[in-house]
C-alpha cells in the first residue's frame, strides 16, 4: 500500500508519562512523527493529540489499535489529508526598518493572509496560519530581507464530517461500556464529507 500523510487524532486522559507511552508506539517501529500537537480538548480533563505521519493505511490502522489499547487512551481516529481541514501557524520576526523601507507591507499582509502580532521599533512579528506550502511561501518572500527568527507550530486538524468528534466522544462517555468503534467510519462516507 502506498504511503501518504495521515492525521491521527487521539483522545486521552491527562496523565504524566502518556506522551511517552504513545510516542514509543511509533519509535519502536522506527516510524517518524512528522508533527505532534497535544492540548486540552473541549471535554474537561480530556486531552487531544494530533499526530501526523507518513505511512500506508495498513500500518496506520495497526498503530491506531495499539494506541487505543493504552489504558488512558479513550479513542483514536485516523484520516487522510482529504478528510480533514488542517492548519499550521507560523511566526516570522523581521527587522522593522528593513520591512518599512523595502517591503510593501500592506501587499505582503494581504497576499499572504498574514497579520502583525507585534510591532516594535527594532522588529516586527508576522503571523500566518495555513498549509505548509503557504507558510513556506512567506519564508521565501521574507528571507531576502533578513528573517531574524521563524517558528512553525504543529498541525491541528478538524474532520470535515459535520458531526465531528464531540458527539462521538460524549457518547463514549455516556455509554457504559462504550461501543467500540474499530474501523474509521468517516473514510468511506463521501456524502457526509463536504469540501470547501
Amino acid at each position, binding site marked *: 500500500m502506498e504511503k501518504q500523510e495521515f492525521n491521527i487524532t487521539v483522545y*486521552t*486522559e491527562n496523565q*504524566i*508519562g502518556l506522551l*511517552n*507511552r504513545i510516542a*514509543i508506539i511509533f519509535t*519502536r517501529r522506527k516510524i517518524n512523527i512528522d508533527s505532534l500537537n497535544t492540548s486540552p480538548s473541549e471535554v474537561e480533563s480530556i486531552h487531544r493529540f494530533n499526530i501526523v505521519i507518513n505511512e500506508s493505511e495498513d500500518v496506520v*490502522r*495497526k498503530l491506531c*489499535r*495499539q494506541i*487505543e*489499547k493504552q*489504558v*488512558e*487512551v*479513550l479513542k483514536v481516529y485516523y484520516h487522510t489529508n482529504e478528510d480533514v481541514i488542517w492548519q499550521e501557524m507560523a511566526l516570522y520576526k523581521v527587522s522593522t526598518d528593513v520591512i518599512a523601507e523595502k517591503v510593501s507591507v500592506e501587499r505582503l499582509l494581504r497576499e499572504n493572509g498574514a497579520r502583525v502580532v507585534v510591532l516594535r521599533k527594532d522588529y516586527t512579528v508576522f503571523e500566518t496560519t495555513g498549509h505548509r506550502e503557504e507558510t513556506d511561501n512567506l519564508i521565501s518572500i521574507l528571507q531576502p530581507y533578513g528573517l531574524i527568527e521563524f517558528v512553525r507550530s504543529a498541525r491541528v486538524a478538524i474532520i470535515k464530517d459535520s458531526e465531528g468528534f464531540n458527539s462521538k466522544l460524549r457518547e463514549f*462517555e455516556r455509554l*457504559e*461500556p*462504550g*461501543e*467500540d468503534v*474499530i474501523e474509521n467510519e468517516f473514510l468511506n462516507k463521501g456524502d457526509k464529507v463536504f469540501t470547501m
Partner: protein
Amino acid sequence: MEVAQEILTKPIAKKAVEVSGSVALLEALITEGVDTIFGYPGGAIMPIYDALFDYNDKLNHILVRHEQGGIHAGQGYARTSGKVGVVFATSGPGATNLVTGLADAQIDSTPLVCITGQVFAHLLGTDAFQETDVINITTPVTKWNYQVTDANEIPEVIAKAFYIAKSGRPGPVLIDITKNAQIQKFNFEGYKPCNHIRSYRPKPIVRPQYIKEAAELINQAKKPFIIWGQGVILGSAEQEFKAFVEKSGIPAAWTILGAGALPTDHPLNVGMLGMHGNYGPNVLTNECDVLIAIGMRFDDRVTGRLDKYAKQAKVIHLDIDPAEIDKNVKSTVPVWGDCKETLPLLTELVERKTLTEWHDKFKEYTQNEFDAVIFDELNPVTEEMTMGEVIKQLNLLTNGDAVIVTDVGQHQMVACRYAKLNKTRSNITSGGLGTMGFALPAAIGAKFGAQERDVVAIIGDGGFQMTLQELGTIMQSGVDIKIIILNNRFLGMVRQWQELFNERRYSFVDIQSPDFVAVAAAYRIPGRCIADRADLPGALKEMMDNKGSYLLEVMVTKENNVFPMVPQGCSVSEIRLK
C-alpha cells in the same frame, strides 16, 4: 431509593484511620486477596518492608536471591493460580532487574503487580543514590505503570493496578512509590477495589452478527481447523472451549502457551503448532478451509512465513484484544470479545459433526511423524539418553497431573511436545520472550500458586546457570519442587541452528557446567546425576518420592536435534521431519 442504592453498591466506609502509605499498601494487597509476595528489600523500599514485619501472619513474603528471580516467581504463581502475582523490589538496580520479567509477562499476558521503591520525591531527577527512571524504562514492557509521590494516592492507584493487571488481556503493572509516600501518614478510608476506568475498555462488546457469520462459515466447512492459545486459559474458558470443540467435532491444535487447556490425550486434540510442533497441524494449516483461531496471536513461531500461511482458508479470529485482530493474519470474521462469552454463543449455533475423513488425514500425518521422529525419540537405541525418553518416563510417574515448568531451548520444545497434561494451568513456560533462566524461579512461584500439585521444572544446562542463585530461595523457603536438568553439554538450540544453517560452525555453544548435584548439595537440596538409561525410572521415582525439593541431572545425547522443524522463513507446510 438512591440512598439505598448507594449503600448497596458502595462498600461500607470504614472510619478513616491515620496510617502510613506502606500500611495502606499492605492493607490494599490483603483486600485484593494477595497471600504471597516475592521480593527483595533495599534502601528505597525499606518503609514497606518495615510495615511488612507486622504482617507476617497475613502475607507470606518469599525472599528471592535476585529481583529477576522474584518476578519470574511472580509469573509462575500467576500462571498456576490464575491470580495476580505480586513482586516487591527496591529502586535503581532492584527495579531494573525486573525488566526482563516485565517484558516476559507483557508478551505472555501474565497479570502482575510490581511495587518498586523510589527515592524521595524531592530527589527525583537529581541522580540520587539508587535513583533510576523506572517509569520510563518500564513503559514499553508494562500494560500500565504509575509513580506515586503522595500516600493519599495509594489506595486508588493500587486498586487500579490490580484491575488493569487482571482484566481484559492481562499484563504486568508497575507501581513506583517514592520513599516519602511510603512513610507519609494520611487518613485511610478503607480500600475499594476498582471495577471501572473511564478510558479503559477491557473487553470489546460481543457482536452477534459476527458470531452468526462465524457459525455459518464453520457449518459450511469441510475441513475446519481450530487453533487455540493461552486466551482460553486466561479467560478461564476451558469448559466452554471443550464444549465447542466436542460439539463441532473439529480437530484442534495448540500454541505452547495454550497447552493443557484441552487434555493432551483428548481425541480431538491433534497436537502442537509452530516451529517444532506436530507434523499434521502444521501441514494441514495450509489445507484447511476454515481456520478458527481462539485466544492466540499468530506469533511468527506459529505461522512461519506469513505470506504462505493458510492463504486458502477463511479465518475466524476470536480475541479479547482488538489490536490482535488483523495484526498478522487478516481475518474473514473477527469475533471480538472474551472467549468465555463468545464460545458458548458460537457453540449454540454450530452443527454437530464428526468429520471422519478430515480427522483421518491428521491421523495419517501423526503416523508419519511417529515413524520418522517420535518413535526413535521416545524409544532410542542409542547408548545415550534422549530428552524425549526422559519426558516419557516422567509422564508415567506424573500421569499428566503435574505442573511442568520449562525453560527455553531444545528441552522446552521436547517437553512441550511430549509432556502429558491432563489439566489446565499445567504448562508454565516463557513463550513469547523466550527467557532463558525463567524455569527455576517460575517453578518456585508455580508451587506457591498451586500448593497441592507436584511441580516439575525441566531445564537445560545453559538456562539453569542463568538463575541458579534461586536455589537459595528454595533452601530458605522450603518449597518443594522437582528439578530435572537435561544436560547435553551444549546450548542445544543454537547448536542445532548452527548445524543446520551455519555449516556446523559451533560458535560459542560449547558450554561447561559445574557439578550441578554438588551445587544443589551446597544449598542442602538432595540430588543425583545419571547417565545410564537403566537408572532413569528409578532416579525419577526417587525424585518424585522425595519429600522436599530434589535435583536430578540427566546426561543426554550431545547433538540431538528437535524435529519436526519449520525452518525460519519457510511456510508451515514446508516443515521438515529430519
